[in-house]
């Protein structure tokens, strides 16, 4: 980094840093709290909304994994359509798509890993939905004018309040749809049902699963 660089570069560097500084200052919770009262609830609402979008992405991802497994592998996890020419092509392009190469070389392992990935995503989706539900319930309580500790109601403007109510309704509706979608996926793919598998370990009155 020579100090004899063109002046515009130095200006660009300084202005970029200044921009970050100003943005950082404005986003400080203390500053935002003064600028926007009711910040806590707005933020909770925003996070719940964002998380619901994340759930949507997760469900799409799970669907894509399962579709891929359905099309590419048989029930024992072996690849349906192998072929030497295809292998060579994949080998030639290994740097472009290394996971695909693994998939072709080790189909059984890939099948299991992808299924496990889908299971993990299902767990995360369940967790997210539980989290969103709790947040929306808390928001409902806070927005209820009849409840004395309805903190958000007193801090938000009338339009802000109605907007917040609309949003919570929207999030609630979407979460209901997502839950249905998740249930459908779990029904189609019994291998994904991970939450109630260890009942057998409870028969003797012990909390014991593993020998």
């Amino acid at each position: 980094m020579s100090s004899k660089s063109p002046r515009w570069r130095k200006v660009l560097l300084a202005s970029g840093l200044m921009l970050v500084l100003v943005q950082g200052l404005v986003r400080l919770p203390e500053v935002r709290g003064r600028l926007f009262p009711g910040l806590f609830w707005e933020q909770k609402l925003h996070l719940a909304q964002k998380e619901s979008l994340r759930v949507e992405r997760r469900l799409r991802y799970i669907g894509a994994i399962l579709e891929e497994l359905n099309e590419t592998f048989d029930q024992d996890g072996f690849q349906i359509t192998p072929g030497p020419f295809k292998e060579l092509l994949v080998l030639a392009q290994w740097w472009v798509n290394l996971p695909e190469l693994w998939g072709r070389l080790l189909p059984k392992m890939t099948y299991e890993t992808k299924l496990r990935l889908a299971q993990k995503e299902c767990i995360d989706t369940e967790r997210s939905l539980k989290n969103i539900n709790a947040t929306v319930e808390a928001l409902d309580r806070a927005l209820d004018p009849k409840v004395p500790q309805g903190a958000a109601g007193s801090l938000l403007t009338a339009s802000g309040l109605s907007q917040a109510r609309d949003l919570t309704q929207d999030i609630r509706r979407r979460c209901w749809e997502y839950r249905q979608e998740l249930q459908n996926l779990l029904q189609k793919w019994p291998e994904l049902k991970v939450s109630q598998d260890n009942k057998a370990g409870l028969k003797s009155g012990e909390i014991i699963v593993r020998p």
Partner: protein
Amino acid sequence: MAKPLRRPGSFKFDPILLVLLMAVVFLLLFRLDHRPFWQDEAETACLARNVLKYGVPQAFDGVNLISQEEGREFNGDYLWRWSPWLQVYLTAAAFRLGGLTTTAGRLPFAVLGIACVILVYFLVKRHFGDLVWARLAAALLAFSVPFLLFSRQCRYYSMGAFLVLVSLYAFRQKWQSRWGPALLLAASLGLLFYTNYLIFFSYTTAFLLAAILFYRQEVLVPRSLVLLLILGLMLVPGLALYRIWEQTSMVEVLHVWISLPRYFGDLFQFVVPLPVAVALIWRWRRPGIPRDPKEKFAIFLTLIISVNLCVIALIPSCEHRYLIHLYPLSVILLGWVVCQVWRYQKFSGVLLGVMLIFTNWLHLVPLDWLRITNRPVHNDFYMLTHPNIPLKLFLGELFSPYPDVNLSLIRFFQNCAQPGETILVTYGDLPLQFYTSCKVIGGLQGRVLLGPEELPDWVVKRWYTRWNRDLNLISSEAFIREKLKLEKDYQMVVLPYEDEIFGNRADPYYHHFVPPVEPINRIIVYRKRSKITSHVQ
């Protein structure tokens, strides 16, 4: 700015170092017990307590079982074989000297955190003679809130960072001709294995590769082979004792493609800001080794960090704690960057330095612009995942601590439960084992016996549901759902505090500096009804 001293290695009293030291001593030692151990810390503490009793880390003391992996950590003899023992013995020594207290348990690790700041300073000053770079790097580490949080834990994190720094320090000495630095290098790496072998494998691979690439002339083959032999001999007992081979079965190669972006995301979000990383890639876009020794060292560290992340991504659980030993390396790199920017344009240098030391804005704001910030739903504005002044949050927590989920439960059971009573809890069993005289079952233990008709005296069903490594619902949670009739046999007690996921976990995604404005999920404890009746009678 970067004025060289008279000669590298010469010692001269530096008042700035003294000020930095006073600051970091305060930040790391003040109110070490402001919050109780959380689950992982309590694991170390409970094992250390058993070391004082049995001489070795036993997972079972006749009443309580220490396990977070459903009993995978030991055989029938209950000898701990899951993770290395060094941190446990260090904690046991601290307990022997200071009693079974939170402060005593955390003290040695906090002291190692302080030593890291000193080592960063002397590593730069001694080898490059650049006082400003040394001060900047030390300041960046001393005020790095994630590093401070992790160093204040009764866990191996600061020990790993310290040993990594010692290895670098020894490597920059004349280890080729002198046995002192050579043995120090081998010993630091060997001890790193006994601190945490995941860190050892990831760091050592990266370190060896970077050393061969950038300091090829200095790596003498005969001496290197002798050192590798010594290191290998040091590792033999550990390889035999710990269940490393069994744990390698958990490695899932395809998960690298998920973990790798997450680790790099963590690096950019909390350690080396993305704009700085991009600038460095641009600067080093042409292959070749820089002639300037300082720049050569900077690129050497960058390679260590990058390769380390690639290797650690093989491990199935992607956790920020596996990056803590890279914080000292990153601050040395960032210190060098600030010096370069200062030389280029003073105003920008100052701005960059101030933002890196006192804020997390350069880490987060550009990521927000690109919409790639990782901000889980349970996060709030007063966390390190939002633009903040981290030191203010950190000091705020130290001066006005709040009862977190573990403290609330510990206080409740210390007041309400009788010694020897049984508590079944779905998570947080180990802090209760350490701080109460009850029999605590459940958690992630998987294997705790109850008589056929026996009901636990207390039940804590934590709000956050947990699954085990096989992706099954954890046994304690399943037991409560399937076997217990909470409405019939138990009385519900709602505590006025948030049922956080972990408590005093240092991870930036989970560490709450302030309690939530309004608890969303309160802690619920169930008390056995027959117990209430007998108390009344």
